[in-house]
């Protein structure tokens, strides 16, 4: 029995979905860097969730290559989230992935009450299927329209137009990750700033990721000694 009256503060879920490109072009160092970056970001996601008692952060991961599949099918509370490395295979079927995400953004399976969901797309290439139909399916759901979106372009050959269109807001820019350090910073920023944007509204910003400078990611001096 508690020494003070009242139970825990009421909260609302934040559904956070990672959409990860696992096509062949990610083979080698890139996929290793991605796995590492997400693993690194998990403690920070826990910390940002811990700092916000009015939100309950639930994570899911979808990978897309020749097919799209849920890496974590059911939403996992961030406290229990563990990362299993993703592997590469095949094509870049982003459209199929978006279709599957759209199905999860209807009510149900979404609850009656939630905070804005977060869709975080990480890709290095050009989609090989009908991604526009998939994107329209996401936009057609009420939760998909409200979602906070972040996009990370891995490598110089990433199709930034697709990512830009996914963001759906000319004021938002995909984040460029041209080095492991940049990728880690971008993933870390996406995992924390997007959760804050979904759960802690700041007045005066129509799109918190666009206008709220406080959430802008750190610009790095890319002075690490990687060999290219």
């Amino acid at each position, binding site marked *: *029995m*508690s*020494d*003070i*009256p*009242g*139970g*825990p*503060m*009421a909260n*609302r879920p934040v559904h956070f979905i990672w959409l990860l490109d696992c096509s062949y072009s990610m083979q080698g160092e890139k996929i290793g860097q991605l796995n590492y970056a997400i693993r*690194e970001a998990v*403690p*920070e996601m826990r*910390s940002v969730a*811990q*700092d*916000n*008692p*009015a939100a309950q952060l639930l994570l899911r991961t979808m990978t897309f290559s020749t097919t799209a599949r849920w890496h974590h099918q059911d939403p996992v509370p961030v406290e229990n989230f563990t990362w299993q490395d993703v592997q590469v295979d095949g094509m870049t079927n982003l459209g199929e992935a978006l279709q599957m995400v759209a199905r999860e953004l209807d*009510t149900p399976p979404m609850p*009656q*009450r*939630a*905070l*804005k969901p977060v869709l975080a797309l990480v890709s290095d290439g050009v989609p090989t299927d009908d991604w526009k139909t998939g994107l329209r399916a996401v936009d057609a759901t*009420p*939760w998909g329209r*409200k979602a906070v979106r972040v996009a990370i372009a891995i490598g110089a050959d990433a199709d930034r137009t697709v990512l830009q269109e996914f963001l759906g807001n000319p004021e938002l820019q995909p984040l460029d990750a041209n080095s492991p*350090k940049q990728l*880690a910073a971008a993933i870390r920023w996406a995992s*924390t700033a997007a959760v*804050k944007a979904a759960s*802690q*509204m*700041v*007045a*005066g*910003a*129509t799109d*918190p990721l666009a206008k709220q*400078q*406080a*959430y*802008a*990611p*750190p*610009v*790095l*001096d890319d002075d690490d000694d990687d060999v290219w």
Partner: protein
Amino acid sequence: MSGMLDSGTLLTTDSGLRVEVFDLLGAGGQGEVYRVRTSAGYQALKWYYPACATPAQEAIVRQLVGRGFADDRFLWPLDFVADARGGFGYLMDIRPDRFKGLPMLFRRQLRTSPRALLKACLYTVEAYQALHSRGIAYRDISWGNIFFDPDTGDVLVCDNDNAVVEGDSTGISGTMEFMAPELVRGDPGVAPGTQSDLHSLSVLLFMLLMNHHPLKGRRELAIHCLDEAAERKLYGKQPLFVFDPQDQSNAPDPTEQATVLATWAAAPDSLRALFTKNFTAGLHDPTTRVRESQWRDTLRAVLDAVVECARCGKQNMTEPRAADPGTCWSCGSTLVLPPRLVLTTPPPRTEHHILLHRSSRVQAHHLDPEPARHDYGDGTLVALLTEHPQKPGRFGLANRSASPWTGTRADGSTQRIDPGQTVPLRSGLELDFGGARAVVRSK
């Protein structure tokens, strides 16, 4: 975890102190905080994200450093630090471990007590009052920048780098749920300042004591996606207190919002009255908001009126000076009022009613008609209710001050109580604490 600054980075503060970055402690909305080594030992360095390292922010930080604010309730910017590439930040002390974040309290993940919570509220009020009385507006009061000790109620205000001199229009807009409605709406000519701080302070106090947001009732439950537009409506365009006596359309839902119903039921009338005033008239007319001095007077009176339930031992807030203490919030038993010490300060006379539970304390601030600050620590202890070491069940007031008291019994005879001595509690016993006078009353 890696941040903007690498471990081992050497920086020099404006005052010439050498600083070596040790590790990253955490990240916030505006920047990162590092543990750094200096000749004075470990300190903390806040370093702004490039997007936040603006000339305006630099001006605020420089002004705060220059102003200086030696007050143990604040982690104040102590020294300005810049690198050669346009980055900057400031040095401050490291937050001691005993101070916990409010999210742990809100999740009920730590043990505390109603007395500690009331003290935390009172200390919070006085901390912001200390700023406001110097003409500084904090402008970003929220659960994220106040920490408290769950045992003592001591508070520590962090992230003071948005505080500005009243009237300075340097803009941060703040977290919407803590912002005054006129700021959420963006009314023309309205800027964050001490008057809007009063709203944020009341929201924070409500959350500390009630574990809920004062404007989140049924209307919030009717919202599917709580996004900016929905929050703007809840907190700005159509704000309605969950316990508004004239309009019950935003009353808490008994199932989904049971916490606030339980905590409100356990709060005494005088506290409820202040919250009601602030979140009805005060929502629409900023000049009617509850001022820090009103919060302070009510909180300290309630603190003196906390009683333990005789059956289950849980602390209960009772209405100061009321004859009926009500029932225990935990076990439902009827509460029994203990004897009280009615203490009158020197002029301008203020009367305090201290209920005498098994470990009641009289503090220095009880004897002062206009104390600058309340302190419930051992350093300011004047008297402590103690049980007789050989005669269990017999209680007396131990003199823990440095000077003798004079006691006058009901029959008119007097006695001297030296520091360290204990005077037995008797109905009608009068005590002269050297200016302030007190009398023990059975009811």
